[in-house]
């Protein structure tokens, strides 16, 4: 069965979604990510959707669910690279993706994840615009 690869980058997991996912594949990704967060004791998940040209309510809910589940498992989730047309459409659709942090690209997303680790250990408290 096809799966979307999950890469480990230190304390974080990186997923790049490049295909137009059918529903089952999306559900599998969600399960795989939760499993890996536990298995690797990950502190963060970065999901790169810069190649996704369509994000409908199903995928949107999946992203929100991944963020909720990860938070319970003590990991932050950041979704990066959403295309402008996709963002406009999601807003029109009424999806706010509550609880999902976002960033413009992988680099900025990693900064958020690293900062969230920093805050935990008592680092400074810059409010980040992407929150």
């Amino acid at each position, binding site marked *: 069965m096809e799966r979307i690869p999950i890469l480990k980058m230190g304390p974080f997991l990186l997923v790049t979604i490049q295909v137009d996912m059918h529903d089952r594949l999306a559900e599998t990704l969600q399960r795989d990510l939760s499993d890996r967060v536990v298995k690797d004791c990950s502190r963060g998940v970065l999901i790169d959707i810069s190649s996704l040209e369509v994000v409908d309510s199903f995928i949107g809910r999946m992203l929100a669910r991944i963020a909720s589940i990860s938070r319970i498992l003590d990991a932050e989730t950041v979704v*990066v*690279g*959403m*295309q*402008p047309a*996709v*963002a*406009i459409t*999601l*807003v*029109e659709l009424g999806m*706010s*993706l509550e609880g999902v942090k*976002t*960033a*413009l*690209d992988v680099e*900025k*997303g990693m900064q958020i994840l690293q900062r969230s680790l920093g805050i935990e250990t008592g680092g400074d408290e*810059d*409010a*980040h*615009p*992407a929150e």
Partner: protein
Amino acid sequence: MAHKTKLGEVIRKYESELLEHWMKEQLAAVTLRRDIMSEDELRQQSSEFIRLLLQGIAGDNLTDITAQDWAPVRELLASFSKSRAQQGYSPSETATFVFSLKQPLFDRLRKEHGKDADGLAEDVWVATVLLDKLGLYTTEVYQQSREQIISRQQSELLELSTPVVQLWPGVLCIPLIGTLDSERTQVVMENLLQKISETGSQIAIIDISGVPAVDTLVAQHLLKTVSAARLMGADCLVSGISPQIAQTVVHLGVKLQDVTTKASLASALDVALRTLGLEVKNRQR
């Protein structure tokens, strides 16, 4: 209808004569623009029209041009009208294409009907109503086409007239000037989001000090843009809100709590730089 029209028969019988006579009428018309269209092209289109006209008439429905039978004729007239609109013809010049067929057609109807005055009157009426409808159809399509061209030019103009400026690496500013309508706001906002993505700027300042008034639709578009920017990972500040606009916004019940608003562009820039972890200091002597 008891009267059996001779329209189809006459057109078929005199097809080439009709075409020649019609071409003469068109070429003689003051409204013909020879600089834009060659005689050959005109002849080709005219003969095509006659051919399709015959097809339409063969369907026996001579009054309802919206019916399926007349679809090929409508398509021809639509593309004809659209291209004439683009070439700069006026709607009358375009409709004259169809109307100038009347005289040649009536001449031949008269020939066929001979002494039958009633038959002739009936057929002239049928023909005139049909050609009127077809001529008016070209005008309708022309209008729609011009409207499309105008609106496309408007959007192009919009994009040019609302530049997105980079105030600092990571900080974009879009100064909106003049009255905003719903469509213009949408175009401008889409442009902003695109620039945010292209430049990787985390903060966009939408300055509306040049905007005299804002209505609900425009306010909603602004809010949607802020939401969309957030989904992308950037944040929007709105600056330059006049007291009048502030009052309108509250009065309209638009919820702005989620949006950081500043009275001046300068304060917005201050917030932006701070957010990026930057500070402006006096240089040490």
